[in-house]
């Protein structure tokens, strides 16, 4: 290796290393730090008697919205309200007794299954339990 080639490699390598040394902190700075999310396994979603048959309520479950439904038959069911297609929040449609996502017309039944539209997966269903005056919703298992 002659002297000129050595200097070229040395200078080019130094430049690349300097660039990387500048860019690495910039990229790490732009990517947000991971923050531990408070994991919530059980929440008081509503008071007993708050929901009439064939109505629903959206409540906060951890950092995402969930929905508690009192079906036409008077059964309480709860599930995630985040559509599995592109994360819009679903809404309970009283006329059909189904959950509807207005973003891309996804539709789910009371077991969280996809009835129609583009959602690829069912909604996550939660356990419902009545304790005293409150209705508690918790993750399964």
């Amino acid at each position, binding site marked *: 290796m002659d002297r000129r080639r050595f200097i070229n490699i040395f200078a080019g390598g130094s430049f690349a290393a300097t660039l990387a040394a500048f860019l690495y902190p910039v990229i790490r700075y732009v990517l947000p730090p991971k923050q531990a999310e408070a994991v919530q396994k059980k929440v008081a979603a509503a008071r007993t008697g708050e929901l009439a048959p064939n109505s629903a309520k959206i409540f906060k479950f951890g*950092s995402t919205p969930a929905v508690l439904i009192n079906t036409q038959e008077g059964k309480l069911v709860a599930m995630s309200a985040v559509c599995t297609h*592109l994360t*819009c929040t679903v*809404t309970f449609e009283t006329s059909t007794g189904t959950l509807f996502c207005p*973003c*891309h*017309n996804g539709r789910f039944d009371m077991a969280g299954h996809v009835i129609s539209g583009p959602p*690829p997966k069912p909604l996550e269903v939660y356990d419902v339990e009545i304790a005293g005056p409150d209705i508690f919703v918790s993750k399964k298992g």
Partner: protein
Amino acid sequence: MKKLAQSLFGYFDERFKLQGLIGYSKHKMVPEHEYSFWYYFGGISLFLAAIQIATGIMLLLYYTPSIESAHESVQFIMSSVKFGWLIRSVHSWTANILIGILFVHMFSTFFLKAYRKPRELTWMTGFLLLVLFMAFGFSGYLLPWNELSYFATRVGTDVAGSLPLIGGWLKTLILGGPSVSQATLSRFFWFHVALLPLAAFFLMGIHVLLVQTLGMSVPVKIKDKKHKEISFFPDFIYKDALGWTLILFLIGVLCVFLPWEVGKKADPFAATPLGIKPEWYFTFMFTTLKLVPSHVLFIEGEQLVILALMIGAAIWFLAPYLDRKAARDKPSPLFTWFGIAALLYIVAFTVLTYAVPKIGQ
């Protein structure tokens, strides 16, 4: 007075060599023919971008990028600040008109095959500018923190998140966390007023420099025919200025009769409102996502749509290199048909979104 103007001009001419610039503009000629009407859309785009910079800087005076007060600050601009309604409406209306004009500019350039050698880079920087201005629209849409923009951002960023390999990383980078939050608003504000303008200035600089250096392209069809030429300054600029005046008049009328709405403040724990849709220039993708089923063979519907759109965009971006016939100054009907198909798809799906809102239900 005339003497003062002359001596001032002399002072600056000595320092900036203005005579050279004026001489260049006077000698620079622009072809005039049956298709030269389409040339003016580039100048109009530049004019509208200047309006956006001016009104955007003014809005910064009162806007606060925080989820507690962003919506209130926009309401304050609209209702309490003198002419605030005008400045914000001009900014919002111009954003939409600018993207419409950019689409017209891009499609006319495509159909006239103005991308052919040696204007490949002009085409490519132009396409990137359209993408950049759509990103301006997307990031600016969230800033008032209303419910439509909140859910549009959730959908839009989830689309980015379903890209293969880099999706998850890209979504976190855009959102600043796992979901749309204060971090997202801060980032969108940063994109909108710092990063995107920097990139836009850079690309616009290259684009305009290339247009000035290479001049206007004459369509293949009439390339060998004799046609008139007009001077860039003052003839072409005068005609350009007429277009600017007309568009400014249109913006003024729209702002006075249809001031831009503030909307309802976003509530992350409320159901998505019925009839939600993004800004009109994203609706063709939005309706496609509605119509494609959850799974097509082994692939998820949304991934298939994204993949197809990305392939289409890549062909569009690389058209100057793929269209070998146009590069040799020959007609290339295959690319013309590709352009017609793309135009029909965008127009049809945009119209469908508004004409049949329950499509796919």
